[in-house]
């Protein structure tokens, strides 16, 4: 069901771990729905993301999208990192099953949440960055069978 890339990022996740005294940390998702992602950013004085790490509670796709998202934002400026969309994460992973698309949204949201935290801590405004939702599922209707 998963592409080889997804399986690769799931079995050998890149940048898994935490950054002590990170410039920004963002946690999104909730345990109720079965996925939580936390992104740590280390940002230098030129607003370049020097390092990025993640921790994720979730399915194979959740782990793979977190891993890929950290790869995509590492070395980028915060403005460039903002442009890393869930689409970009999915494409880089050669696609995701339809039921797992929300995982890529979660990854995008986690990056935004970490950037938001960085902006708050440093009293700066990042153009185009909105306050992240704490839970990407909050707008979704309950499923029925």
């Amino acid at each position, binding site marked *: 069901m998963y592409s080889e890339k997804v*399986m690769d990022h*799931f*079995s*050998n*996740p890149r940048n*898994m771990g*935490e950054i002590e005294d990170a410039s920004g940390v963002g*946690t999104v998702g909730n*345990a*109720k*729905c*079965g*996925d*939580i*992602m*936390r992104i740590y950013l280390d940002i230098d004085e030129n607003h370049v993301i020097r390092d990025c790490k993640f*921790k*994720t*509670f*979730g*399915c*194979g*796709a*959740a*782990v793979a999208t977190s891993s890929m998202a950290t790869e995509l934002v590492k070395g980028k400026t915060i403005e460039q990192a903002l442009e890393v969309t869930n689409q970009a994460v999915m494409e880089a992973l050669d696609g995701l099953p339809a*039921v797992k698309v929300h995982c890529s949204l979660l990854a995008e949201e986690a990056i935004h949440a970490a950037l938001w935290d960085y902006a708050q801590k440093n009293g700066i405004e990042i153009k185009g960055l909105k306050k992240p939702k704490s839970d990407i*599922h909050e707008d*979704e209707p309950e*499923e029925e*069978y």
Partner: protein
Amino acid sequence: MEKTDKIIYLDNAATTRTLPEAVEAMLPWFSVQYGNASSIYRLGAESKKEITDVREMIAGSLKAKTQEIYFTAGGSEADNWALIAAAEAYGDKGRHIITSAIEHHAILHTCEYLKKRGFEVTFVDVDEQGILKIEDLKKAIRPDTILITVMFANNEIGTLQPIEEIGSIAREKGILFHTDAVQAYGHVPIDVEALHIDMLSASGHKLGGPKGIGFLYIRQGVKIRSFIHGGAQERGRRAGTENVPAVAGLGAAVKRAFTDMEERTAKVCALRDYLAERIEKEIPYCRLNGHRTKRLPGNVNYSFQFIEGESLLIMLDMHGICASSGSACTSGSLDPSHVLLAIGLPHEIAHGSLRLTLSEENTREEIDYVVEKLKEIVDRLRQMSPLYEDFIKKQKVKG
């Protein structure tokens, strides 16, 4: 992580390996004795005899009468048939059905179907071990209750229900009692007379038989409508040319199941308890789901805190271990298993569940290997989990 070609199969509640004797029993009925059982000539009569023999054997295994066994294409069909046909046949008497909150979807979704057609359904709760709350069942009974359907054993957590007690209550009140015994038949003794069961569903592939065959036991005297129309097969109640190879395969599996049940069960139970003991001793922050003793011989179900089930399954698969989980990602919805929620697990604990279902083919060496891998994987996923990170930090603060 390295991939492995070795398979350790611990998902026998999903399906079992078809027994070699079942495969062998099936073979002649494809291209040697291929006659239609309804035909008059000898080739057909042989098919007919095989079907009758298997029917007789199944009846004997349940202490039922031969004419009370109806072959179906599996357990789900038997469940659908029992509920829909009973509702139709007894709909004039009443419109109320009682079931449990932890039934298989073949029952739950059929109940939803009947609700849309004017029936009322009460879903009785279970306790923390997954045992039906008998007092709640008694309270749920109304003058217009026509059917009680409660599974014999749960497919996820393996809990065995107090079937005799439920059967007695139903019989006393004159209410039909159906049980979905798909997980139990062939694994634990069942006596339909002693347990006051009016209808019982079973499936072939959960006990070493082929897929696509099952049966419904309908006690003589129960008024129940035909399910498939178009022929005299199965006493006119379930038309369609009989699947003779599958019936023969089921027969071989049933024969095996009832020949060595005691010995086999003892072996599987010992292996199950060994696995459970090692998990509890060696993996911290886990919880047994289901009743410790009133459970199916092969069922082991644990929740591992701070991790998610699908990730666990994929990693086990990389080591050749086949298992299942009640996490949302494996159920295809956002919610984890209704069974785990019904026994009171919070969502995040339910997401981290793992079901390992053993058979007599598993060995102690396999179990040892599984425990070793499970320890590594749970640890690895916890290292990856923000929930675990938060938990450890809190522990440190507490000192």
